[in-house]
């Protein structure tokens, strides 16, 4: 790899170094903007005992749901899970540990991790089971709980366009958790629909600056729709 050329040309190379027991942060909301081919590569590699940080856990047979089939995930931080039968079964059997985390707190914990902020206070979850065991503190008469930043061994991210330096833009609401995940991986891998020349992306319009990105790969995507809703 010369200079800032972060392109890799196979998914095997893209996920090189991932090992059992690692923590993986994944972008995506539902099935929107998920790094589907990077997930498939993790499945192919068969690494186990993963801790996954992601808003959701895919569906049966797609997205992070794929990693449930061979019980590759032992722990997940998510705000909403159980859109698939296999997940529910593993949760009920205690084969997977679920750390339910409010959506905004999850997003902020990843952002904090990437931004070198070890912890922050939030009102979210105060007085609820989520606040149990966490430090409570009052600021200006209101109660807040302490939440810690999260970083991962790997971050897997789905972008729209990127240049070889790893500058990334996201398309529409496929942005969601991807930019935060990108900042918080020790190794951040981004798969995109198109790789463009440096300079083609307007500098002030880049969502994820290349400094956060270690590897870029161009792929093709199924982009499954969870709830196709149309108007008459």
């Amino acid at each position, binding site marked *: 790899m010369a200079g800032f050329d972060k392109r890799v040309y196979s998914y095997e190379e893209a996920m090189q170094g991932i090992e059992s027991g690692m923590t993986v942060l994944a972008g995506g*909301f*539902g*099935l*929107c*903007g998920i790094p589907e081919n990077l997930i498939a590569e993790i499945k192919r590699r068969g690494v186990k005992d993963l801790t996954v940080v992601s*808003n959701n856990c895919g569906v049966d047979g797609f997205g992070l749901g794929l990693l449930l089939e061979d019980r590759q995930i032992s722990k997940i931080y*998510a*705000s*909403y*899970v*159980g*859109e698939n039968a296999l997940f*529910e079964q593993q*949760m*009920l059997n205690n084969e997977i540990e679920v750390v*339910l985390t*409010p*959506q*905004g*707190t*999850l*997003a*902020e914990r*990843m*952002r904090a991790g990437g931004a070198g902020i070890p912890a922050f206070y*939030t*009102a*979210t*979850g*105060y*007085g*609820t*089971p*989520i606040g149990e065991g966490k430090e409570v503190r009052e600021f200006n008469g209101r*109660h807040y709980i302490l939440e810690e930043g999260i970083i991962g061994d790997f971050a897997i991210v789905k972008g*729209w366009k990127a240049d070889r330096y790893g500058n990334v833009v996201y*398309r*529409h*609401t*496929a*942005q*969601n*958790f*991807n*930019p*935060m995940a990108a900042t918080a991986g020790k190794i951040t891998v981004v798969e995109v629909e198109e790789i463009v020349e440096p300079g083609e992306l307007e500098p002030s319009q880049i*969502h994820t600056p290349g400094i956060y990105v270690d590897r870029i790969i161009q792929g093709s995507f199924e*982009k*499954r*729709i*969870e*709830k*196709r*809703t*149309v*108007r008459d």
Partner: protein
Amino acid sequence: MALTREQMAQRVARELQDGFYVNLGIGIPTLVANYIPDGIDVMLQSENGLLGMGRFPTEEEVDPDMINAGKQTVTARPGAAIFSSAESFAMIRGGHVDLTVLGAFEVDQEGNIASWMVPGKLIKGMGGAMDLVAGAENIICTMTHASKHGESKLLEKCTLPLTGAGCINRVLTDLAYMEIENGAFILKERAPGVSVEEIVEKTAGKLVVPEHVPEMTFDE
């Protein structure tokens, strides 16, 4: 008669003000978008990162990269903004959303809300609900007044694990519109043909009944 889901949405929609940024939860809250009064413009915030949610797409417009927080395909209205989840919840947590409408299992007279977890049942998660109730100053809770078995959902103290503590000040049920103040539900309006007595009977928490409780009216 108890309000229909559509009537509940209609009643909530009367709380909208011109220029409001609004987050609508799943279920009845979603229907509120269908009853925005004439002459009033509101901007819908979807917590997956969309401010200015538009109509559902036509078949041709369907785009897997454009969904709402309910994971439905949607469109963006002209002048919409799209951003990350961190930015979305910065808006929510920072109190920039003018009105949040969401469903609940239980609400109590202290403004506590339980909406995400029934012990013993499969727990799927709170999604963005805890952030929404902690962030908004202005929340309307919509739910049926009582369960199918006739048990009140308006309690002295929530029995289910909370979504947020002391954060609800308005509740619309199929029977009544109430505000929560100083540890009590204040009965403000009743559904057409529903008696104050029935509401009193079906409210387990402390209910303050003013001398006059107007009946809601609906055009249709």
